[in-house]
């Protein structure tokens, strides 16, 4: 009896969660195949002839509004920019953050905690506070409007996140396992590469995914520090709104397309996320 109640509750929990979190997503997906006329109805249309006009328009970058004007969108370039910025940022973060996280987890050196905390404090440096001075600074040293500068600034968001998540995972690995590997005759670097990193993989995977998402979604840094040539999809998609319409179909379509790379990455990473326990018994 009690098991029944429990599983009924569980069923409703699933339904509620799916409805709340995924229904809007499904509706966005749905809208991406609709015209604005079909989207903006008092009573929603459920059956309509799906149009690929939005997708084609995004791809071609030119949307002709019949007898009125031609709308230009630079979404493809925005997508490429987002990809460069996010992949670049996450790569740099992994390169710097994983060894640093390891150092903070393993070596209790003097001032180590202070450095770790300072790095964390970058994360809560309010963007509005630093963005104007940064703009001034980057203009002065000729870094305004460069991918490099943005990837650098993105580290403020991604590096602390990765550092603090991955650090916890490293701390969970028994140091004896690493010592054992070194006593086998492997160098410090080999034990880091072959033991510590593989064992912290679920944490590194989860942190990288989050870093990627945050880099991908960043808005204000790119907006202020870059020309329209290097704007990511987040800024680009807002430009769909014109003086003659809010093309919701196109915006929905832009969201769908902009989410796809992250979704694919998440699916790819998922096996590591899931791996967590299956390696299990890290402690013995």
């Amino acid at each position, binding site marked *: 009896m009690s098991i029944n109640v429990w599983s009924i509750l569980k069923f409703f929990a699933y339904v509620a969660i799916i409805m709340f979190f995924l229904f809007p997503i499904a509706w966005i997906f749905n809208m991406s195949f609709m015209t604005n006329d079909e989207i903006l109805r008092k009573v929603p249309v459920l059956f309509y002839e799906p149009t690929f006009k939005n997708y084609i328009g995004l791809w071609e970058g030119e949307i002709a509004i019949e007898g009125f004007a031609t709308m230009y969108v630079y979404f493809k370039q925005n997508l490429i920019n987002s990809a460069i910025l996010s992949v670049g940022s996450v790569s740099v973060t992994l390169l710097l953050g994983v060894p640093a996280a390891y150092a903070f987890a393993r070596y209790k050196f003097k001032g180590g905690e202070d450095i770790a905390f300072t790095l964390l404090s970058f994360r809560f440096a309010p963007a509005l506070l630093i963005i104007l001075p940064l703009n001034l600074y980057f203009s002065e040293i000729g870094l305004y409007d460069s991918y490099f500068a943005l990837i650098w600034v993105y580290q403020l968001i991604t590096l602390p996140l990765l550092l603090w998540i991955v650090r916890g995972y490293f701390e969970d690995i028994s140091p*004896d396992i690493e*010592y054992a590997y070194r006593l*086998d005759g492997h160098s410090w670097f080999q034990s880091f590469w072959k033991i510590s990193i593989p064992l912290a993989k679920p944490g590194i995977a989860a942190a990288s995914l989050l870093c990627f998402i945050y880099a991908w979604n960043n808005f204000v840094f790119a907006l202020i520090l870059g020309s329209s040539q290097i704007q990511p999809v987040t800024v680009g998609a807002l430009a769909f709104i014109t003086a003659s319409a809010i093309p919701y179909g196109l915006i929905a379509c832009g969201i769908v397309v902009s989410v796809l790379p992250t979704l694919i990455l998440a699916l790819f990473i998922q096996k590591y996320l899931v791996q967590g326990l299956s*390696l*299990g*018994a890290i402690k013995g």
Partner: protein
Amino acid sequence: MSYLDLDNLSKSFKDDKIISNLNAKIEKGEFFVVFGPSGSGKTVLLRLLSGIMMADSGEIKMDNQIINELHPEERDVSMAFQNFALYPHMKAYENIASPLRAKNKNMPENEIHEKVNEIANLLKIGHVLNQFPKELSNGQKQRTSLARSLVDKPSVVLLDDPLRNVDAKIRFEMRLELPKVLKEFNTTVIYITQDFREAMALGDRIAVLYDGKFNDIDSPKNIYQNPSSLTTAKLFGDPTINNFDATIKKQNGFVEVDVNGEHF
């Protein structure tokens, strides 16, 4: 000339002296048991010997070479950890093969295969080589860990209370089996335990560690019969008898034992 020479070794953490001015000379091929109560610094000693920790002062000489400053991977020492420290993401076979791959860069795969199987069969784990550590029983984990420390025939094997985390039956079996296996390798063994019976059963010599140094180093028989101090004697007493709250005092040249108010 002894093979392993510990000269005035000291190690402390903050203000805590764990090991102070410890001396020992260990012969080649000897089964040297370090016995001491928990918290006496046995594990620290092993870590100093293996290079995981560096001594504050004193010297460790191996074959007349000072090895204090050498990294773990540079010392011809292997170790089996109390908690096994198996690599969870590698199968038992790869766990055991690890030292072979590390120290003999170009060892052909078939030779590795041969050596791993040889030691695995000797330790009766030939049938679990294809399993991950989490799929092994504690006894099998322990044997895998031993196999890993022995497979490359190191000059010195450090065994950190290897029987502590296995159940009584296996412990009993292994106590008989271990000396035989180790003899075949003709290697110097430093074995840590806090079980005096185990120490007596296994050791060629026993060193009794407390107060940061070796207080007795002698054959099991001698230590048992002629302990150099009361503390040693107490440690080697049968635990069931000593299971009372007892105060031991030296009074008027006599030893006085005070148990629940009664004097002996």
